[in-house]
């Protein structure tokens, strides 16, 4: 028994190291001066810290703009995905309707097509519609990508709130909307928050679609992808950190909701 616990502990440490060490190394490199970076052997402890690389990186063209674009698109995607996904998830959880199973399967199938396949028709359509190179266009794409998970997660959350509670609210004088707002929403909120953050991270990390659909109004990952390939090594580390850090912060926030996400523990 004791031995088994040790194995589990050891595995946990190994997995954590597997995730944490690269992040540490990237952070270290990003905050090391360019000269120190070229030393051999490279010191593994923060001995010669400098904000110079990071400062230059942040000042370079398109980075701050890309950051703003990314945040704008991410938040808009969250709002739009919830606006469409919540009612759909609710319908899936509460009502029996013709084609429900097909619909659920179809949701998953939308993710079956790789975005590379879709890129040309998508770019073409967006050009025709005048949506090319707009934040709105990228938001639409990201919403489409996020909707299946949003719908399936929220429907699982809504399933966790018994329908009888809603009925009780309506018996005691609530309209269907009031019953939803007063009874279902407060209980579903942690799950909805998790789903929202999930969507945000998805939008934040999505590179390919954003690269194809924009030219000037790039999101941060798209911008980095376009510019960093030709940049000196030091800036690639800085760019890597700029990409990892926000996602990391979101995951830290999401963490306590993650169990809720599958509707297992609503309380």
């Amino acid at each position, binding site marked *: 028994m004791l031995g088994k616990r040790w194995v589990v502990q050891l595995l946990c440490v190994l997995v954590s190291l597997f995730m944490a060490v690269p992040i540490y190394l990237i952070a270290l490199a990003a905050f090391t001066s360019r000269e120190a970076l070229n030393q051999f052997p490279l010191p593994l402890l923060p001995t010669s810290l400098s904000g110079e690389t990071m400062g230059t990186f942040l000042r370079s063209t398109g980075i701050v703009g890309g950051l703003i674009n990314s945040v704008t698109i991410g938040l808009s995607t969250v709002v739009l995905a919830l606006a469409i996904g919540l009612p759909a998830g609710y319908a899936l959880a509460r009502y*029996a309707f013709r084609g429900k199973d097909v619909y659920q399967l179809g949701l998953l199938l939308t993710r079956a097509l790789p975005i590379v396949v879709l890129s040309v028709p998508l770019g073409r359509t967006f050009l025709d519609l005048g949506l090319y190179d707009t934040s709105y266009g990228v938001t639409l794409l990201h919403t489409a990508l996020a909707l299946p998970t949003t719908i399936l997660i929220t429907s699982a959350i809504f399933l966790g709130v*018994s329908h*009888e*509670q809603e*009925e*009780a*609210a*309506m*018996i*005691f*004088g*609530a*309209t269907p909307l*009031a019953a939803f707002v007063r*009874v279902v929403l*407060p*209980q579903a909120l942690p799950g909805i928050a998790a789903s929202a953050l999930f969507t945000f991270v998805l939008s934040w990390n999505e590179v390919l679609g954003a690269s194809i659909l924009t030219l000037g109004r790039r999101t941060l990952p798209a911008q980095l992808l376009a510019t960093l390939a030709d940049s000196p090594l030091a800036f690639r580390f800085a760019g890597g950190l700029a990409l990892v850090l926000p996602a990391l912060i979101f995951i830290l926030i999401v963490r306590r909701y993650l169990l809720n996400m599958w509707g297992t523990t*609503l*309380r």
Partner: protein
Amino acid sequence: MNVTVSNLVKTYPSGHRRATDNISLSVEDGEFLVLVGPSGCGKTTLLRMVAGLETPDSGTVTIGGRDVTALPARERGLSMVFQSYAIFPHLKVRQNIGFGLTMRKVPPAEWSSRVQRAAELLDLGDYLDRYPAQLSGGQRQRVAVARAIVVDADVLLMDEPLSNLDALLRMQFRAELKKIVGRLGTTTLYVTHDQAEAMSLGDRVAVMRDGTIAQLGTPMQVYAEPAEQFVGGFLGAPPMNFFPALVREGRLVVDDVAFDGAPDGWEDRKVLVGIRAENVGVDGDIPGEVEVAEPTGATTLLTVRWAGGELKVQTASGFTGSSVGLTFPPSALRFFDPDTSLALH
């Protein structure tokens, strides 16, 4: 307020037969009416249609003379206790009880005093600031009842409110519920599958089967004079005994045994005889062999094998012996048509 349902028909999309089949029923003002029946008999569907949670295919529901068939639940002026309690886990007991008052926009001072009064009526005074998760099952049920009575509705609906409690708690709360509802005098429609609950709570009992009402009457009526075999077999523990007999020369003949009490006008025909376990005498001369004797404390329940098959006999405690002489008091015998299972009159 009296509640009247007329010709209610409901078929669920998935079901191939009617959940309620043309049911008409009237609950008098202040009456406690229990709908009882095996699962799937349509009792809950009927209650939900009165509540406005299901829409009938046809038929009407009137409450206090007002046709509410097309009205949503919130406008029907009723209140309900759910089987799963359906109390709100994210609200404290106080807010749970006061939910109906909040929705009716009752002023704060009155709100608190009414919540307080309902809480005290159900011994919840000390738990008002707790969350439901911190309460026991019995206490949650009390919250659900308090929430239902605090709104002072015209009609109180209860859907198997005691079925999730353990046996002891159920007995206690049953008596308490009867006291509380009796004091309020609210018209109550109560659904249960537990025949003991139905007998003990109801002013009248409606025994349901297959979407129809098999019999409607006072508990003692439906217990003592079942209108069909099903009712006798469903109500009572143990259920009524049934055995076929032949009517010959004014006597009932079972195998080689004959005794008095045959119904009139049924000469030379088969009849289904029903008798309650407590009405079978053990001081007679019809031979029976005791297969099992189960002392239950106040009485002893015998399983007796006789000419007519197996018979449950309830007798005084302390009974011993392996054989009995049975008697069937003619006044306690009930007769049913073997073809239709309906009672003979």
